[in-house]
């Protein structure tokens, strides 16, 4: 496969990962997943309530060819809870992937770096392909890479905030030094931010709210997919070096002035 996103021993052609939360309906979510071309989509866990119907997500998602589910550990407040959530997710999805997220404070939902690191060590040992949601910290990214995470997923901004790439300078450092894929997760609002992430060398983006909360999620999913492709192509093509002064693109011949002077 050409220019694939390699996570562990798996290779994906799409560099847009999609979250399935916040959609107005399961049908809207499924249409957005199809439009996005995503091959990796995240799902969450909840308690089963007797008498309340189970969200029928698995069947329609399973009907989309080439889709791999990535259960998350949302709701876990520490490493122990996250490991348990990951194990339950594997039971339910049969997927080797886990989106490891430990954010104990519901106000800002920022990831706990210490518990995330501890949980990642255990989950890697247990054979998971660990995708850790993490602060945009280059040191932590390196540590998570060293213990065997399949990727690192630094945040652009707080989950669901739509504040964009507030961590840009740190993301550049993480991308420069990473030897595993860097997937920017959380905070993106617009396709242009996804394109910019790819232009600076990001390997993929994970988007949920920006698509689910759009007026037309299906169209927005398509827009993000195009932006990710464009940004990736731009990075591969190599951006021209910037200059502080103008550099003409047309010949600055003097024949007009010469004509007037005669």
């Amino acid at each position, binding site marked *: 496969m050409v220019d694939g996103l390699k996570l562990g021993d798996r290779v994906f052609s799409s560099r847009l990962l999609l979250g399935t939360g916040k959609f107005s309906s399961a049908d809207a979510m499924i249409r957005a997943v199809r439009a996005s071309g995503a091959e990796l989509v995240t799902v969450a866990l909840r308690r*089963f309530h007797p008498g309340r119907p*189970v969200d029928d997500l698995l069947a329609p998602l399973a009907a989309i060819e080439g889709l791999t589910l990535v259960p998350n550990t949302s709701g876990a407040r520490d490493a122990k809870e996250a490991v348990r959530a990951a194990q339950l997710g594997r039971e339910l999805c049969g997927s080797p992937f886990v989106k490891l997220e430990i954010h104990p404070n519901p106000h800002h939902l920022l990831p706990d770096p210490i518990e995330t690191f501890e949980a990642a060590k255990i989950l890697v040992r247990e054979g998971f392909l660990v995708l850790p949601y993490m602060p945009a910290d280059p040191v932590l990214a390196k540590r998570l890479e060293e213990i065997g995470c399949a990727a690192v997923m630094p945040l652009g901004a707080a989950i669901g905030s739509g504040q964009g790439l507030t961590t840009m300078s740190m993301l550049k450092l993480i991308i420069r030094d990473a030897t595993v894929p860097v997937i920017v997760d959380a905070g993106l609002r617009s396709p242009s931010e996804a394109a910019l992430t790819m232009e600076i060398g990001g390997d993929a983006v994970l988007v949920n709210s920006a698509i689910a909360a759009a007026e037309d999620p299906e169209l927005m999913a398509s827009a993000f997919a195009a932006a990710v492709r464009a940004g990736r192509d731009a990075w591969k093509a190599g951006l021209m070096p910037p200059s502080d002064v103008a550099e003409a693109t047309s010949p600055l011949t003097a024949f007009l002035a010469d004509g007037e002077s005669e």
Partner: protein
Amino acid sequence: MDLVVNGEPYRHNGQATISELLRECQAEAGRTAVMVNGDIVRKSAFDTVRLSDGDRVELIVITAGG
């Protein structure tokens, strides 16, 4: 027997297996993960693991999430 299912008291009248509890709760075995007293029970053991009075059971399913 008296169980605690998803944090709530639950009177279970059927046979004391996970499969029977799932049937009684109308939870699909193929779509439900189960923990008993904090330990995950593999699907292959749903018919054989016996529940006891006072067991804390968690029934977990997939939902949408980012």
